[in-house]
């Protein structure tokens, strides 16, 4: 993984000092709340329902065991012994005090981590495929490019006061595991007809109140021009993005109101003027970063006899193996998903003990590294096949081996009304209701992506869930709007509204009815999405609303 040099370290250390001073000035009344707000947000600090919330970047989802232990330590020292992993490869702490945040940031800096631009109207944490570098379908490892973009975006003098937040995601595989199509900019690594490496550039995707799938602004840009092209898009957005209404300030609205072609003309004109400038990358620049992402020294010809035996003798292990692990591009190794969707905790949450223990497991079994996913789980990416059984036993003890990766109980869920000051409705209790109802049949139901947000800001990505749940406020009561048929895989798609919103006490039954229509109609191993597309929404609508009468 990328390791800070002296220069990187100095920047995060100096950033901590800067924020410490800003916090002091705020507490002494030298900065107003209005002035302090964007400054604290750009250091990850929100003021939430109960306490401040601190969001920390996990750049492109890559963590060392040492860094994970620091999260555990921070949760013990400054919070309530847990952290919440988010859809954009961040971790959030919900209970720190404002005064302690500079100390937390200093602790993070000591392990090469930071919260710079994890919030605010600036370029956010660059996210990527959690399986980068280990999946077999990869065109190119996107992580070095994510790091190049991270550095360019960090404390960018021109783009720190944008009209609104700006999110970039990069994928190196045809299968989109980073939701790139619902980002302000989505980058897909490509090799063109001349054999050159570069990116397809998508622009204007996003969720929230107005969900939009990103459109291709440039089918191919060579790697040397990626920063200048990003700079051209950002400059165009910074100049012309709307600032009169925060709900219309994202780049997706600018692209829609300008029209993709006209927007593209503006960007291309800007890019032509700067493409040969200092942002043009040379091979040495790229190689210097790539050197940080060389493959681990894998054990060649690793045995799999133990694995084969255990798959026969232990059916629970076999179920976990089938559900929670995936093929690795290196023979003899396997990718292991650590489920943060146990029935006993809110989706995406991990306790300090779990974090410490996973750090130890990463050291023992996966080269001391791990990843966080868009689906709010953790991944040990490089596990020897014959270590799987031991690893599984330990994960079981830690309540981190729930056999539900990709299933209906592996849901994406925002913190909702319990923590968030924006939310209209709670998500965590609905998630618990769904988990209880479907826990025993999750595997049998197969892949179903269920995503839930407590308000239309859509942090739980409900619009791209095969089953989407959106919390709405109806005269002070919590109601839920359901959508079906969304997707965030290869070709993203927004879900269709099922019908009128549903009262809180009926939501789990409604999901049960949706699932029963699927079960009645599916053929053989047909997945939910396919059955839905074949059968159409009406059958689901009839079942949910007829039985609700």
């Amino acid at each position, binding site marked *: 993984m990328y390791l800070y040099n002296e*220069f990187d370290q*100095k*920047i995060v250390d*100096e*950033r901590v*000092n*800067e924020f410490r001073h*800003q916090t002091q000035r705020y507490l002494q009344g030298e900065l107003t709340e209005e*002035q302090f707000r*964007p*400054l604290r947000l750009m250091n990850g600090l929100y003021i939430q329902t109960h306490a401040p919330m601190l969001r920390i970047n996990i750049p492109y989802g890559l963590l060392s065991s040492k860094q994970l232990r620091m999260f555990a330590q921070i949760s013990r020292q400054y919070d309530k012994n847990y952290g919440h992993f988010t859809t954009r490869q961040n971790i959030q702490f919900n209970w720190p005090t404002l005064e302690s945040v500079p100390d937390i940031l200093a602790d993070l800096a000591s392990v090469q981590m930071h919260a710079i631009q994890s919030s605010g*109207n600036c370029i956010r944490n660059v996210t990527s495929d959690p399986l980068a570098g280990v999946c077999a379908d990869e065109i190119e490892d996107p992580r070095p490019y994510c790091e190049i973009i991270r*550095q*360019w975006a*960090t*404390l*960018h*003098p*021109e*783009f*720190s*006061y*944008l*009209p609104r937040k700006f999110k970039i995601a990069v994928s190196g595989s045809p299968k989109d595991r980073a939701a790139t199509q619902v980002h302000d900019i989505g980058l897909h690594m490509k090799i063109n007809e001349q054999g050159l490496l570069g990116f397809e550039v998508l622009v204007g995707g996003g969720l929230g109140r107005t969900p939009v799938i990103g459109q291709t602004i440039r089918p191919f840009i060579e790697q040397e021009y990626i920063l200048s092209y990003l700079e051209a898009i950002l*400059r165009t957005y*910074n*100049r012309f993005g709307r*600032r009169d209404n925060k709900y219309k300030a994202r780049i997706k609205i600018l692209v829609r109101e300008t029209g993709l072609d006209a927007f593209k003309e503006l960007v291309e004109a800007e890019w032509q*003027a*700067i493409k040969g*400038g*200092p*942002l043009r990358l040379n091979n040495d620049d790229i190689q210097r970063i790539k050197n940080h992402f060389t493959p681990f020294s894998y054990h060649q010809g690793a045995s799999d006899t133990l694995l084969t035996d255990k798959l026969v003798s232990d059916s629970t292990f076999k179920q976990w193996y089938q559900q929670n692990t995936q093929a690795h591009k290196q023979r003899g190794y396997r990718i292991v998903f650590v489920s943060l969707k146990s029935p006993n905790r809110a989706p995406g949450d991990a306790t300090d003990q779990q974090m410490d223990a996973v750090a130890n497991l990463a050291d023992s079994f996966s080269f001391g590294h791990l990843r966080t996913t868009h689906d709010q789980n953790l991944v040990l990416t490089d596990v020897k096949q014959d270590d799987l059984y031991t690893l599984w036993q330990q994960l079981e003890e830690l309540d981190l081996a729930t056999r539900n990766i990709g299933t209906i109980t592996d849901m994406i869920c925002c913190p909702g009304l319990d923590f968030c000051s924006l939310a209209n409705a709670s998500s965590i209790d609905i998630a618990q209701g769904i988990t209880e109802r479907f826990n025993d049949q999750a595997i049998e139901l197969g892949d179903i992506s269920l995503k839930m947000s407590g308000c239309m800001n859509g942090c739980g990505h409900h619009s791209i869930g095969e089953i989407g749940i959106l919390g709405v406020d109806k005269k002070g009561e919590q109601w839920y709007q359901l959508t079906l048929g969304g997707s965030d895989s290869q070709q993203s798609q927004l879900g269709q509204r099922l019908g009128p919103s549903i009262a809180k006490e009926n939501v789990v039954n409604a999901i049960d009815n949706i699932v029963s229509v699927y079960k009645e109609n599916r053929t053989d191993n047909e997945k939910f999405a396919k059955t839905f597309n074949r059968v159409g929404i009406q059958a689901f609508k009839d079942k949910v609303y007829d039985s609700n009468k």
Partner: protein
Amino acid sequence: MTLISNKQIIADNWRLLDETHPTQPGNSIVSLQFWLDNKEHLGQHQGELGLLLSGDENPEAFCNELNHFSLIVIEIPNFVDGRAYSLAQLIRTRYQFGQEIRAIGDVLPDQAGYLFRVGFSSLQFSTQELATLALSKLNDFSHHYQPAI
């Protein structure tokens, strides 16, 4: 009002042109509209001219006029409005304006380093205290990832 430039507090040798008495000599700042309407008279002006722009001004509206001015003033209406940053950047790099570019209006001391890095060469603050703080904040970072202007 206190002005900083080149890492120190400097005297302000400029004033806004009184549009009712435009013939008054001395270094004067004029709005773009006033300049466009009175170019010929102002050509005879005794003293240097500065051009006042808002952060959302389109460079095409003034880029051919730049050689008449030895100062560009960009007004920032609200410190969270980042358009002035891109405008200064364009004036400096695309239109190759080599003289003073000044930020006025709602500027936080914390933004001083950013503003200088996108091409501003002077910043105006409402008090000497804020100007001094802004100067000290220029030392907050010793390294940067982006190329400087």
